[in-house]
């Protein structure tokens, strides 16, 4: 079983929620139990603040993050004092949280902890490196609310997306939002060498890069939101492809429709896409395409049919409908499927 993880080379796995209270912590704890049972050394960190006993917005009680003995954690040192005797504090990093610098610590016993989040991507990468140097075989990154950034392939190797009932009041609404999120997270990889070259240049130089007449050309603006500059650019010639260094929004897509012909659009990675499925469908209908320089390896979608607000969806129906939407990505319910539900995820990761 362990070999499968190794083959897949998934050292860092992000758990991202589609909304606050989606159920990330439960998924995280389930993964931790499974990894502990396999005797694997695990590192835990969060992007943004997480691990509080109560949700900051709704004040509802949240499950704590429980670390198996030997696990590594990155959090503010003061949050380790509650059970100070249960920790070996290893090093202070130059990264800061509102509660003080991020400290790396090793759990000497099973311990509950609040994870004060690392706020910047560079910081997360730094912690991942230090965890690996300290022997963490698997690193779980808790992406705080709306932080799908944790799933970025520039940061983590793979991601699990948690679709919780808290996202929408109706199952139809939940399915719509899940489909949108999963579609965006699984945007395909750009294969055309010219498109890839444009995307690489866009990322390196932080500006739009276009393709016309078989050539890659850097453009004098960095975002589709700069309306006048974009219009100037689009009016300047027939662009077959366009690489964006930053985010893509509905407004950005709308501006591209002004080109009057199909465009192959490429992003650095799927976490930069903030568009609605409706806009995207219209964009596709015009013959345009959207792809990414690097793709997210979506290991699974976790479903949680219970909302902290008090309503619940039929777990079976929710899982079944989610599975239809997400196929072939495996879907599991951390509460109802138990640790057995992770088997398929592991197969998915090792299958590449």
């Amino acid at each position, binding site marked *: 079983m362990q070999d499968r993880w190794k083959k897949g080379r998934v050292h860092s796995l992000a758990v991202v929620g589609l909304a606050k209270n989606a159920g990330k912590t439960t998924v995280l704890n389930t993964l931790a139990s499974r990894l502990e049972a396999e005797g694997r050394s695990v590192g835990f960190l969060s992007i943004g603040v997480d691990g509080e006993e109560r949700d900051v917005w709704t004040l509802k009680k949240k499950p704590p993050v429980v670390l198996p003995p030997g696990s590594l954690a990155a959090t503010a040192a003061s949050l380790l004092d509650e059970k100070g005797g249960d920790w070996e504090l290893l090093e202070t990093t130059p990264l800061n949280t509102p509660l003080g610098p991020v*400290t790396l610590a090793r759990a000497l016993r099973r311990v509950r902890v609040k994870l004060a989040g690392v706020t910047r991507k560079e910081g997360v990468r730094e912690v991942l490196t230090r965890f690996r140097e300290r022997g963490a075989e698997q690193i779980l990154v808790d992406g705080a609310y709306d932080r799908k950034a944790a799933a970025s392939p520039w940061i983590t190797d793979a991601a699990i997306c948690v679709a919780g009932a808290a996202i929408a009041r109706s199952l139809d609404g939940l399915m719509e939002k899940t489909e949108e999120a999963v579609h965006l997270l699984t945007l395909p990889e750009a294969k055309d060498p010219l498109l890839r070259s444009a995307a690489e240049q866009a990322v390196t130089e932080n500006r739009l890069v276009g393709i016309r007449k078989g050539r890659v050309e850097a453009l004098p603006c960095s975002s589709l939101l700069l309306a006048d500059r974009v219009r100037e650019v689009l009016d300047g010639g027939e662009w077959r492809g366009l690489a964006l260094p930053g985010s893509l929004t509905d407004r950005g897509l709308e501006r591209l429709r002004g080109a009057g012909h199909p465009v192959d659009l490429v992003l650095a990675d799927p976490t930069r896409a903030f568009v609605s499925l409706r806009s995207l469908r219209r964009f596709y209908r015009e013959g345009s395409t959207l792809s990414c320089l690097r793709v997210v390896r979506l290991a699974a979608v976790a479903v949680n049919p219970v909302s902290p607000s008090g309503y619940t969806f039929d777990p079976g129906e929710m899982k079944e409908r989610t599975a239809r939407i997400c196929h072939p990505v495996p879907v599991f319910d951390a509460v109802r499927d138990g640790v057995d539900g992770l088997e398929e995820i592991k197969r998915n990761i090792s299958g590449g």
Partner: protein
Amino acid sequence: MDDLTRRALRWEDVWSKFRPRTPMGQRAKESLPPFMPGEESEWQEVLTEQQQLLQAFGNDPAGADRVDYHLSRLTDPTGVIRMLESGEVPKVSDWFRVKTFLWHGEKLSSLIRKAVPRFRMETAAEEWASALRLLNPAPSLGPSFSLSDDFDSRLKALRRAWEEEDRRVRETAERTARDVERDFPLRRNGEGEWVVDRRSGHLPALERDSRIRRVRETPFDAVFRPVSTPKRKEALRRREIAAARLEAVQGEVLEGLAASFRSRTGFLTRAVEEMGRLDLQRARAELAKGWGGVRPEPDPDVFRIVGGVHPAVAASLESKGRRFSPVDVTVLRGATVIIGPNMGGKTVTLTTVGFIAALGQYGFLVPARSCSMPLVPWIVGIIGDAQETRSGLSTFGAEVRRIVGSLERGSDGLLLIDEPGRGTNPVEGGALAAALTRHLAKRTLWSLQVTHFREVLEVKEARVYRVAGLWGPGALSPEGAEEPWERALEKRMDYRLLPWSGEPMPRNALDIAGILGLPPDILREARKRIGEKSDGSMENKGVGK
């Protein structure tokens, strides 16, 4: 130095590059005072140490990297020292902060003692070692911190006892759960709960089963947990007792550490100051390395700068493909004057002198080939437009007020004035500049001023420099008209300062205006006007002889 002087000298451009790495170094920078008259020996000691640091690590980049590595990881235990002084008991994370400080501080202390034996250290190697040992009772030293068993002989047994009780708690839970799972087709989730579909045929039996209890339900599921058996309750109680005993001893360890370190707060305070000072010295030396800094020698009477450079101005010029002409100048007590054409670098000279003087006073090796200087209680630069609209002062008014403020100071400082009197009519301005120069010449402070007024040259007591100025005949050679003015100017301008020996006041303003692109017809008209006027009338306006 007041804010206007700092701005005029472009002080922040360089000060912002002075970057200590540690929190205590950064704090020391914020409140760093300049050396004052009477502190010459301390001043020279600081400068010597920097030279020694540069010498020691100049040929040992690996050693320099080690110093920087430890400095960048040094934590600040000041907050913990305050806790100890106020009788509080620091927590585990506080001790970790102290240990990190001691771990890296001890390494730094040892490195510096070896590489720079004469570096002033206020702490002894034994003090570092013994403090570190208190936080690291295990035989092998390491940078991490935990309340390890080595702190107290009881800890090992108590931890084992707790682990044993924890194992029992788990076993009792596991036993009950296994029994339930043998009787029903259920599997626990990661939370140790059974989530059962409410439509399940087993639900009524589960509801009746006394080994489990329903903890919550949703319209679709019922969630069950094992009921606490008397055995499990007893196991939980025993684990709680074991935990309390363990925590009590851990608390005693923390209190013991606090007691041990309370008698060492003096050492810790000195150690923090020492590391802050080392960090400042390293940061100073690093910055000075960039400009090949030399030690300013103490001289109670004379500022003597040879090959002086202003790094920020030099960097600006370099970015435009130009070069800074190093400044050679001597400023004695009394009045020193610089004359020269416009764009001849007079103000830059003024700024460079002020900047080097200030840098020296803040304990830096200065950007020059050689430098000697006194320590002065103040430096004032009246350079540029200090117009204060809110207080109703014009350029001229603001300049006069600042001159008055400087003259009223009871001590001898360095006064730098850029073209005094230029803000009013040339007749009065010239007279004022000359009178001020005469007054300054009689004073024992150091003044350096730039002027275009020839009346100033009549003050025999003043020491005068002139900028060598434009060379070659005429304003523009035919080919010169085609090249950018900056290049044209640099080609033709000799920025050197030469002692003035009675030459006429330079008259290159029209040539320079030509280089800068003023239309030829205007220049022709201006030249014609000069020709039409008698020399005497021009002299009255102080523009030349």
